[in-house]
């Protein structure tokens, strides 16, 4: 069910939400958090859809704040979606026009669920300093996505400079399964320290940067970051230990091969994770992620600068065919 409330106020929206609850039943009860999506018109629908999917795991009130043109008269257009049009949550879409477009926080305050956590998500562009932004200040958790930024590398640097507990980035969420596999690989013999590591991934992949940073920070060893053509995501991780290399390769973005030293190579499905899945993962824990903090603020600086660009992903991931990169 979708209800449009053009040219309205937040008081009217609130009143309508209560009315819906009385008319239709308990659908606005039992929410565990408020998810605020700060997005522009072009990406609004896909973001709301992902949030709806995630709400099946974490029932929440979703408020999408869409800023329109800053010129012209102040106007607030609202749309309420409940039932089949809103996953397991309820969605309030707020379109802000005129000078109001710069004050999204003011329309949010009355609509936040009482006494429950607020999560803010910027699916595309995020403020320079998210925790200092007006909406960021309301939220316990602030989700950004460095992969959507014009320059992911610069974006990560910015996030690192302004990090506050509660910040997190979907580029980090995307490598959780990779990290799990690598951690599990170290739990098997031989129990030897990792002497150095190499992470190959697209030149525009902040996930690959974070992976390298995480390894550098946790393993305290030299880590190189090999760059493959844009768009290929993370393609391989190599951990070098005295008795040989452990390689985790994903040349095609779906199936990976894990080759521990002295053991047969094993194939495993390691598909790129969908947006909704990553978002649901982020909503799972709302406390600060200390490991992300260390990775971002300490690990990134430890990565060795790449020496040369490789022409194709195939070359970067085929063990043996790859030219060993010497740390600069």
């Amino acid at each position, binding site marked *: 069910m979708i209800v449009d409330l053009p040219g309205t106020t937040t008081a009217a929206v609130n009143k309508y939400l209560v009315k819906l609850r009385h008319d239709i039943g*308990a659908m606005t*009860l*039992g929410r*565990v958090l408020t998810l605020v999506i700060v997005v522009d018109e072009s990406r609004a629908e896909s973001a709301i859809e992902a949030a709806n999917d995630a*709400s*099946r*795991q*974490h*029932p929440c009130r979703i408020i999408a704040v869409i800023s329109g043109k800053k010129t012209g008269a102040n106007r607030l257009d609202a749309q309420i979606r409940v039932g089949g049009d809103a996953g*397991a949550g309820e969605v309030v879409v707020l379109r802000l026009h005129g000078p109001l477009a710069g004050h999204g926080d003011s329309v949010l305050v009355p609509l936040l669920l009482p006494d429950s956590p607020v999560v803010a998500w910027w699916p595309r562009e995020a403020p320079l300093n998210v925790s200092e932004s007006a909406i960021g200040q309301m939220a316990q958790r602030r989700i950004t996505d460095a992969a959507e930024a014009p320059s992911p590398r610069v974006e990560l640097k910015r996030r690192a400079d302004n990090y506050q507990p509660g910040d997190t980035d979907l580029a980090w*969420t995307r490598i*959780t*399964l990779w*990290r*799990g*596999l*690598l*951690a*599990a690989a*170290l*739990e*098997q*013999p031989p*129990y*030897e*320290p*990792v*002497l150095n590591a190499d992470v190959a991934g697209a030149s525009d992949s902040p996930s690959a940067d974070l992976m390298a940073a995480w*390894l550098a920070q*946790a*393993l*305290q*060893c*030299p880590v190189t970051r090999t760059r493959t053509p844009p768009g290929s995501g993370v393609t391989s991780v190599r951990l070098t230990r005295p008795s040989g290399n452990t390689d985790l390769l994903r040349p095609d973005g*779906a*199936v*990976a*091969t*894990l080759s*521990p030293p002295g*053991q*047969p190579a*094993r*194939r*495993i*499905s*390691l*598909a790129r994770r969908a947006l909704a899945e990553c978002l*649901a*993962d982020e909503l*799972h*824990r709302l*406390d600060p*992620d*200390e*490991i992300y903090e260390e990775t971002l603020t300490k690990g990134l600086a430890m990565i060795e600068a790449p020496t040369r660009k490789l022409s194709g992903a195939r070359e970067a991931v085929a063990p043996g065919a790859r030219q060993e990169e010497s740390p600069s």
Partner: protein
Amino acid sequence: MTPTPVTPGQNPLRDPQDKRLPRIAGPCSLVLFGVTGDLARNKVMPAIYDLANRGLLPPSFSLVGFARRDWTHKDFTNIVRESVRAHARTPFHNEVWRNLAEGFRFVSGTFDDPKAFDVLRETLQTLDEERGTSGNHVFYLSIPPAFFATVTQQLDRSGLSNSDESAWRRVVIEKPFGHDLASARELNSIVGSVFRSDSIFRIDHYLGKETVQNLLALRFANQMFEPIWNANYVDHVQITMAEDIGIGSRAGYYDGIGAARDVIQNHLLQLLALTAMEEPVSFQAPALRAEKEKVLSAVRLPMDLAASTVRGQYAQGWQGGERVSGYLDEDGIQKTSTTETYAALKVEIDTRRWAGVPFYLRTGKRLGKRVTEIAVVFKRAPHLPFDRTATEELGQNAIVIRVQPDEGVTMRFGSKVPGSAMEVRDVTMDFGYGSSFTESSPEAYERLILDVMLGDPPLFPRHEEVELAWQILDPVEAFWATQGQPPPYPAGGWGPECADDMMARDGRSWRMP
């Protein structure tokens, strides 16, 4: 810079602070005995695929089927594919399936054939070499308990039950764990003579880990419930597990076992233990087990079993718009069968916390709907400062823990009916956390299988708990054995009339779940 050391106990990539890092099982294989059984095909195989789909299985994971059928690896793969297609909860992806199916093997043979077990040993050795399962193997006995002795002895003889220090062997057995105290002990000594007690995992597929953890969280993470969780405030507790289905094709298993052995002995007494136990000093396995064992050892049956136990057999009737036949008319059931399909039982717990608070347990097949719940019913307020007419409709407050199908918590309390007259009536307030009942929530079986592979035993019952539960139930079974055929109850209702009479004698009534 000096690289961080890596040792068996220290993994620099697994920081306890890193709460989002998934635990992926180490290299291992699972040997499934009883490939053609219902549980294997409806639950175990789909759960394995779902785990693979979620990326939680080790890359080397291999599944070995063992059965009498004259199958090839390919036949076995097809059987698994069918069951995955029909029952997996996550979508079917060809790539995931292809990678998983590469590790499928099948060994044909009977349970008493030494040659077949030698072939099994060779198969596992080959898997260690080809796929790197590193000598870690789970033996999943999805077979009738009568075969446990034969299979475990064969595993012992062929050297499969033992491994060197760097690898592990584990065995999974499913309920029922025996049919009385003596048989449970015998079963335990058979399996225990071959496997160490911390390598034996008893799976009770009714009791998912999620449920147990939810209950522990509700009781011990909150301040508002524990102060009233005792005989000062609680009037009585009702634990219900109702099924709407009949026995289906399980006549061979069910007849002679009955509802009490099938459900009360394991499931309901486990729920009772979790509801009634004191706070464990930690959530480590031994601490949790200690509390459960303590409370189970304090459970006492009333003196008069005739007045405090009830059984019944479903008769034909209408259920959910369908005419269903009675228990005695089911295929494979003798007309003279005395097996009960409904069992209810009152017990007390001799502790300071629960003195005088009866716990009513009931379970049955072909009841009104499928539901499992724990209802903690409170005493009435000692004094009601209203007119008598204002509170006529007010019942007792209750906290209901809904276990399935709609997992969550319901609270029942009095509220004023809107209007000018003062009138208080019962209302309910519900909470259901999304992930516990949506598609994306992990099913109990997946958690169980993953825990076995990770070697994580806390919530699996140990044989001490199993034996304590039998001690409670054995006198009831002995009493029932002298009582002839159980009274019939119409299918689709809430059990025999004498069950209502049992409650009425105590001045109480069953809750409608």
